[in-house]
């Protein structure tokens, strides 16, 4: 566990509520620097919420989230925006700007945040597109691409500013086996080539674990497991086993939390 000596992100005792519903009941976790961390767990366990908390789009009720030593939930607006330039996010839907071409989408953060001239921007954009294997598609519009390609373009956009970390929100959802393989390889390759800290949120357990160095499993409002994939597979914990084996019954209940039926009736 030497990797935890150098955590890039530290989550400490975070409690978070949405409306009146408790999402996190005091969670703590670490994301090691330069590694691929998988955040797994059943749907609705608040995996995406954790990404939003790290990105500062949501503020925890209590507890702290530190990214590279900075407490995200206490940053001023301007500092937060500076920090976000060091983060790349790949959203579930890709979130490409529909009215801009592939090239302009990738060039967008460069045009807004840098003073580079057009030739240099062109060079950088084509390099990033090359990295995701879509340099030939630079003049297409997003709606002309398949879902997997859209995600790869979004990935090129997310790494346009050479961030130190990148967060993937459900990158493998709805992919055919080939597209999935391409994305998996890409995540792995980018992590090594750019020395990124990567966080992959997913419930595709097998695929995600195959590339992850570190796993955080969320369930029932707490961190159910944290450690290496090997340790996870060897865990005796019933919750972890239920999730790994996909059994319908176990500590993760089939029912959405509610008062007992007799009390309501």
């Amino acid at each position, binding site marked *: 566990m030497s990797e935890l000596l150098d955590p890039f992100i530290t989550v400490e005792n975070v409690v978070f509520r949405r409306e009146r519903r408790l999402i996190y009941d005091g969670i703590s976790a670490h994301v090691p620097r330069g590694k691929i961390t998988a955040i797994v767990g059943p749907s609705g366990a608040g995996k995406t919420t954790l990404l*939003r908390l790290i*990105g500062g*789009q949501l503020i925890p009720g209590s507890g702290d989230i530190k990214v590279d030593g900075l407490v995200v939930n206490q940053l001023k607006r301007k500092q937060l*925006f*500076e920090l*976000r*330039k060091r*983060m*790349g*996010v790949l*959203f*579930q*839907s*890709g*979130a*490409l*700007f*529909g009215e801009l071409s592939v090239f302009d989408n990738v060039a*967008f*953060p460069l045009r*807004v*945040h840098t003073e580079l001239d057009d030739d240099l921007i062109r060079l950088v954009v084509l390099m990033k597109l090359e990295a995701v294997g879509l340099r030939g598609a630079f003049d297409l519009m997003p709606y002309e691409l398949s879902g997997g390609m859209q995600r790869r373009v*979004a990935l090129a956009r997310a790494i346009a*500013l050479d961030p130190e970390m990148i967060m993937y929100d459900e990158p493998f959802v709805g992919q055919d086996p080939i597209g999935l393989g391409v994305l998996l390889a890409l995540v792995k390759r980018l992590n090594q080539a750019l020395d990124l800290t990567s966080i992959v949120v997913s419930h595709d357990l097998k695929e995600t674990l195959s590339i992850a160095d570190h796993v955080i499993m969320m369930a029932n409002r707490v961190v159910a497991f944290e450690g290496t994939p090997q340790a996870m597979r060897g865990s005796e914990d019933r919750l972890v086993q239920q999730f790994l084996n996909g059994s319908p019954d176990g500590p993760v209940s089939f029912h959405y939390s509610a008062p007992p039926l007799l009390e309501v009736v």
Partner: protein
Amino acid sequence: MLGYLQRIGLAALSQLSNLGRAGLILAQAVFGRSRAGIHWHLLIDQVYAVGVLSLSIIIVSGLFIGMVLGLQGYTILVNYGSEQALGQMVALSLTRELGPVVTALLFAGRAGSALTAEIGLMKVTEQLASLEMMGIDPLRRVVAPRFWAGVISLPILSLIFVSVGCLGGALVGVSWLGIDSGSFWANMQASVSFYDDVVNGMIKSVIFALVVTWIAVYQGFDLIPTSEGIARATTRTVVYASLAILGLDFFLTAVMFGGI
């Protein structure tokens, strides 16, 4: 009984918090400082989208409303032998009322709903969140240019609507029904005052523009991010904006022309 009271209180509080959020969004979009100053090309893009693209519907509606006013006015005025006053009637109804109000209603339906749907779609497809995560404030980047474009475009559209309407009235009155062109225009010029009628009409139009665009961008920005949420918010934009226009129009007319 207390339950009802509680529900009324709850509804009032939620409305109030909606209004507060809408105000915050507006304030941040309009007055928040931007590092790069005003994004001129974004503004121009939006003026094109909400202004230029609304031009055809405004011109056609203006022409027909002017022509209908001409026909209807003529059949009434001819009973009193004062059909020369047709120009006056057409021009006054257009500059004071129909111009600003109908333009704003059409604008709410054409551009307002599009604004809501566009911003809503950007929210649903996580484009707004993605902007935020790129360190770009979506209020400044997405909402502010759309807001200003609306405020600039609607008064211009209103001017065009009134002008085309007056020409439409003249077309029917002079070319078709045979009113003397000199007396038609002279009557119009004698009774329409630039400051009291045209300028007041424009003031109305600017106020409608502020309100309609505000409602549209707020509904888009604050909707529930599903496709159903977009549909509902778009409907709400048109309904709320139309009600706001008509209500405000009564109030403004009372202040401007009602002698209060």
